[in-house]
């Protein structure tokens, strides 16, 4: 297997799908000539040209809505939000038109669109640029949401997202773009990871750490510390996809460990973790030996200061501390 960065893996996935289907078109601010604000699309404009890779004005409601309309006609737009945080100016298109048009038309329309971009805190860009909206969008039936934590998952899931015939909101992470990891070789065939499949990133017996996105990386670090310093063997379950959600994998892990810490970069009121908590307590009530605990962002808008932003977010230290309260 090769080693690629998360960014390269994503790009490879996009490139393959551009080759795979003429109707796939990439759009967004600075995705073409500038090669992408975070360089995910680097080189694609040069390779695929003006028709397939399209720079847009700063009009998220306009261009995302345009993508939705085009998708109803059979185009398969992959729209970049420079930051997922900018969903706020396109919210109506994202949660009404994309999510509801199939339903309101009694199934006559469909909307095979992907909206992708980074959705994370931790880069000292302040409250308006640091939203983590996985839970926000997963709340809308009609939408699908996923959030890969590794290069391989990034590639496999973006390809599944583009081939999916429903709207998929794909949440990346600026702090993972440079992270390296193994990705299957091209000779080994088309590498697609289905939406809705969680992955145990580390087996364990004493407690389940359940997370998605960069929090998975934090959980893996925490698991190491827990093992080395406390003799606790934690399992790390990466949800990967938020909706569809692999509820079976969650319950299986809980049935094994009987203790759970959910890690979620979201603010604590709600978020994916509140929903996972609800599912676990409802469906594995008798399996639980302790209350489900969560590590979320400290409950305030995202702070700018680089001296404390990492403390506001989940991090291995905070995870370890939380685990120690229930084992």
């Amino acid at each position, binding site marked *: 297997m090769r080693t690629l960065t998360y960014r390269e893996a994503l790009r490879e996935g996009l490139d393959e799908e551009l080759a795979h289907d003429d109707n796939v078109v990439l759009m967004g601010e600075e995705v073409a000539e500038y090669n992408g604000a975070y360089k995910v699309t680097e080189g694609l404009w040069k390779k695929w040209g003006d028709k397939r890779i399209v720079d847009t004005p700063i*009009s998220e409601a*306009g261009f995302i809505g345009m993508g939705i309309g085009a998708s109803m006609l059979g185009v398969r737009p992959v729209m970049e939000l420079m930051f997922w945080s900018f969903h706020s100016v396109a919210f109506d298109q994202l949660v009404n038109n994309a999510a509801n048009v199939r339903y309101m038309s009694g199934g006559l*329309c469909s909307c095979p669109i992907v909206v992708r971009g980074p959705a994370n805190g931790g880069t000292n860009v302040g409250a308006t640029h640091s939203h983590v909206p996985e839970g926000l969008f997963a709340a809308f039936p009609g939408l699908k949401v996923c959030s890969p934590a590794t290069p391989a998952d990034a590639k496999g899931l973006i390809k599944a997202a583009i081939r999916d015939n429903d709207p998929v909101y794909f949440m990346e992470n600026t702090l993972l773009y440079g992270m390296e990891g193994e990705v299957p070789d091209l000779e080994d065939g088309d590498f697609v990871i289905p939406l809705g499949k969680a992955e145990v990133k580390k087996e364990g017996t004493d407690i389940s750490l359940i997370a998605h996105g960069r929090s998975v990386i934090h959980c893996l670090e925490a698991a190491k510390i827990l093992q080395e310093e406390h003799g606790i063997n934690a399992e790390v379950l990466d949800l990967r996809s938020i909706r569809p959600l692999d509820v079976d994998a969650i319950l299986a892990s809980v049935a094994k460990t009987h203790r759970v810490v959910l890690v979620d970069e979201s603010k604590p009121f709600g978020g994916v973790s509140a929903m996972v908590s609800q599912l676990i307590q409802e469906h594995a009530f008798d399996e639980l030996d302790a209350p489900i605990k969560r590590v979320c962002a400290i409950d305030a808008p995202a702070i700018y200061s680089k001296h404390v932003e990492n403390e506001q977010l989940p991090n291995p230290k905070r995870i370890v501390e939380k685990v120690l309260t229930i084992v």
Partner: protein
Amino acid sequence: MSAFDFASSPINQSLTPERKIELYTQMVRIRRFEQASMKQYAADKMGGFLHLYIGQESVAVGTLSLCGEHDHNITAYRCHAHALASGMSMDECMAEMFGKQTGCSKGKGGSMHFFAPDKNFWGGHGIVAGQTPLGLGLAYGLKYLEREGCCLCFLGDGAVNQGAFHESLNIASLFGIPVVYVIENNGYSMGTSQERSSAFNGCLAQRAEAYAIEWDVVDGSDIYEVRAKANIAMERARKEHKPTVLEIDTYRYYGHSVADANHKVYRTPEDIQAYKDNHDPINVFRNKLLEEGVLNEELINKINAAAKEETAAAVKFAEDSPAPTIADISTDVYWETDNDTEASKIGHHFFS
């Protein structure tokens, strides 16, 4: 009345008498359909809102009469006329309002959400101006897929003040998108007159100008004028991939929706009557066709009777159709689950 006689423009000259009768018949059908809807609404056969188009028929019928197989259209919640003029049946439309399984949207959309993608009609949208980027996208799709055609995207005079419309105008011009925005200016957004909702210089369509988009203002009571000017815009879109904004002046006789108890407060009954007497698009066209010798009283009565009969049949169809079941609530959410694909079997798509 327009100074210029648009009957003589080539696109109208090319109309056969049969086609003229068809256009007239469409308008009458739409009006009868809506009058029946109003009655059924009062009889509590429907829920929610009912936004009537009565008084505006020439706009939908005139513009959509120009559509060929590659031309598409999309509109807001006041969508019955566009649906019928796109070729949808009264049965499926009435049943939709009755909230029945046989409705065009299986009873899931209601009066505001008629759809018929097979007839190039993309709804029926409830959020003011929310359809304007979608119309842009349909037209973008046509260009992308290299189909010759355009998309007509309708909106109200109040809708021009939603940001999404402006974002769409800029993109339409910048990207060269074959979309024609049709502002159906009926003078009011709910109870607010155009003067109280929009700042403007002369007209609303002029907002196009600063985006280097062509625009025009149309007297909507004359279907010939509607067709003549829309044809120019649609040809510009199809041939040059250039957008247009058309503002078509028109009028609605009833309230914003049937629930609008105030509609005789913000407008006087005299105003409404004056419009009906002098500008009713069906009367105006009927008189022209009588003059032209295309119509006669007998034919008019026949058309009327047929429309009423069709409407009555649609009401019966709707009445007799089955309501959705509780299980129906959960379909049409995801394409993948509806089609029972491999993907749909992985992970939970639904929660409780």
